[in-house]
């Protein structure tokens, strides 16, 4: 079984037993989330964000054994990242900000959006590799039709319709995973 298809709890258990491939998967799985918290929710400068990013994974690696519920790895990493971002801001790298929680835009609102985004990316894992690549390249990586067409060896003129089809499939998958996400009738 591919590591990417294992649930979080199994990845955590494998990391704890010293499986380095599982650790690489864990970092890959949560890297976007940690990066987004640093740069979008707390708006850290790139060099501060990089230090927090590395510190989050360093502490996660050291303290994985203290995690009480392996399924709770995402909120645990989220809280750890938030705490380290606040420490970084308070340490004076952005002296103009006194209270990180009162930042414009609201950190809590942004965190809610990032949690939703994480769930959507998890649902994307259930799509075909082609769909997953097209959606990720177009929306998350901001690549042009031409770049996507060339990378995936498909005519760039068909990308728009493929995006539309893949989004429809994603919606079906996402609503299947999250019944509360369905529109009320």
């Amino acid at each position, binding site marked *: 079984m591919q590591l990417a298809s294992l649930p979080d709890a199994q990845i955590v258990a494998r990391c704890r037993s*010293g499986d380095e491939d599982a650790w690489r998967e864990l970092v*890959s799985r949560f890297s*976007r989330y*940690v990066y*987004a918290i640093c740069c979008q929710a707390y708006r850290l400068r790139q060099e501060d964000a990089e230090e927090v990013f590395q510190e989050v994974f360093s502490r996660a690696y050291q303290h994985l054994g203290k995690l009480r519920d392996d399924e709770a790895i995402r909120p645990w990493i989220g809280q750890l990242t938030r705490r380290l971002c606040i420490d970084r801001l308070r340490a004076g790298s952005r002296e103009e900000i006194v209270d990180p929680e009162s930042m414009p835009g609201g950190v809590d609102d942004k965190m809610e959006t990032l949690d939703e985004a994480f769930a959507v990316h998890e649902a994307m894992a259930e799509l075909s590799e082609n769909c997953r690549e097209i959606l990720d390249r177009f929306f998350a990586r901001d690549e042009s039709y031409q770049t996507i067409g060339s990378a995936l060896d498909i005519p760039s003129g068909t990308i728009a319709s493929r995006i539309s089809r893949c989004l429809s499939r994603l*919606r079906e998958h996402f609503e299947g995973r999250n019944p509360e996400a369905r529109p009320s009738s």
Partner: protein
Amino acid sequence: MTAYDEQRLAELIKALPPAPQAWVEAAQELPLARGQLDDIVARAEADLAFRDALIANLEDALRLEGYEPDTIPLDELRRRLEH
């Protein structure tokens, strides 16, 4: 209840761009880095001259012994050498 139309899903995909590849790779190499760290600390405990060299100039002493300082968590190494 919240409805997730295609536009909302697109916005949420966009909300999680990839982290820089070099950051991800550095974090993925942590087990290797920690193995090196433990090895260096053990050597420093057994060899006082090596320990003194590390304390005097950490990065140079590591390079002299064939370690690549960029791949080692230096702040943590300093902390462990102080104890």
